[in-house]
């Protein structure tokens, strides 16, 4: 649809800097790997090889933050266009989500680089990788609907979201693995839907992690709940959004 066209156009602006989509997360992974693995020598943290382990979670994490952060601004940026648009309002949300997703997909070669460097290759469970992408997409779509609609009603939401995202970075198994968490807390951690999603990204390389399957189940179900809630809330707030346009 037209949104895709629109997306392409947005992307032509960045294409010059495509290399950056690769370099940015790669650099980030290396820095974190250096700090945690070399400097601190924290063998207990995460799984080996740590570089690969990191890059597998950092890319989806970035997609997540960028998409969610952008969704707080969607309708302010749309401005006058909403006033004449006969297209469904959700498309605006979907559009920023797709843009961030394309960036994510384009940055995936970083994982390949990490695989080459560490000489680690995935097992058959890597087939769950696309599943993880789809799930994250659904989760983010639900969240974006919620947040974009919410930030029309509460303008301060953008700030709140930024803080929550930062906290979530440490609450999610990006730097560490779910198995690093004390047994008692693993149930609580499963309430974070990202736990399941990030777990699925990694499962192809560390199949032994599948033990916590029940935990994944919970967070996956949560993704769907958020999606449904997002859709419902968005429907209710839609008239408000149009008024503010």
């Amino acid at each position, binding site marked *: 649809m037209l949104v895709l066209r629109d997306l392409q156009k947005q992307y032509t602006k960045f294409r010059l800097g495509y290399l950056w989509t690769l370099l940015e997360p790669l650099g980030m992974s290396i820095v974190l790997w250096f700090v945690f693995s070399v400097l601190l020598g924290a063998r207990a943290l995460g799984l080996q090889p740590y570089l690969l382990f990191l890059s597998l979670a950092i890319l989806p994490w970035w997609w997540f933050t960028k998409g969610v952060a952008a969704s707080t601004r969607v309708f302010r940026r749309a401005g006058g266009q909403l006033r004449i648009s006969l297209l469904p*309002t959700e498309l605006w949300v979907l559009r920023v989500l797709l843009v961030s997703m394309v960036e994510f997909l384009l940055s995936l070669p970083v994982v390949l680089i990490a695989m080459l460097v560490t000489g680690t290759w995935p097992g058959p469970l890597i087939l769950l990788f696309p599943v993880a992408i789809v799930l994250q997409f659904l989760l983010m779509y639900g969240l974006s609907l919620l947040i974009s609609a919410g930030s029309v009603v509460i303008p301060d939401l953008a700030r709140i979201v930024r803080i929550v995202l930062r906290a979530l970075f440490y609450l999610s198994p990006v730097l560490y693995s779910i198995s690093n968490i004390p047994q008692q807390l693993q149930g609580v951690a499963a309430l974070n839907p990202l736990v399941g999603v990030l777990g699925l990204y990694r499962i192809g390389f560390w199949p032994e992690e599948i033990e916590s399957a029940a935990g994944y189940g919970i967070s996956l179900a949560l993704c769907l709940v958020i999606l449904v809630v997002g859709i419902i809330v968005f429907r209710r707030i839609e008239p408000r959004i149009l008024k503010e346009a």
Partner: protein
Amino acid sequence: MARQDLTRDLDAALAFESAGVRMPRRRRRRGDGRRQRLRRIAGEVRRDEVWRLRDATFSVAEGESVAIVGGKGSGREALLRLAAGTLVPDEGSVRRRLGVVPMIDVARSLVRGYTVRQNIYLVGGLLGMTPDDAGRQIESIAAFAGVESILDKYLGAAPPLVRQRLAWSITMATGSRAFAIEQTLIVGDRDFRQRCWTRVDEMRDDGVTFLLASDSPKQFRRFCDRAILLDNGHVVAQTSVPEALSMLRESRRRSSEPEPDDPDSTTDL
């Protein structure tokens, strides 16, 4: 959710039934925002909204051209946006049998960073054209707007007049059977205006429906079959165009201020 739910068996092109909509009052941003919020929390001010349009009941037959007469802040834009479905009524209902294309400051939706061609796709798409449609018509749109030579140049540098011409051409190319037009039915220089009139007259003869809100009595007289007079969000009268215009003049004379409404609403229209 699709914006325009069409009612196929409606006997008019468009029907408002005691429709009303509340709009947030345009706040002077920043400034006393914090105090306002405090007061809202304290329950003094419930919500900073005003009724932009209330209890509007009327219908428009297919092929009619209706003038929406009223001063600034009388709810013209709200009415047009309700008609096009880019606003949802808070009470009452708006039903339409035809898809209504909103022509409300379309030029503002053009994106400077896109080429003219991309803008045609974008704005055409917003107004309900499919990419195929837009692609097929791109030549004729550009020709009408006189922008063939800059079709693949960025719009950024183009003067406002060109933007308006482009916006106009795209809107008319949607091939819709009904339009809700705010302010600028006819734009551009003399030559372009002439072509606009010709085109619009053709469309009227063809039975296309128009809702026109404007400040120009000339356009109303030239163009509209009848008028709906709005005052402060209420439909005051549905009469002939000359009568509505004289009523408007009358009410302006009565109220001492030339602009009879709250100053906040000026940006709204």
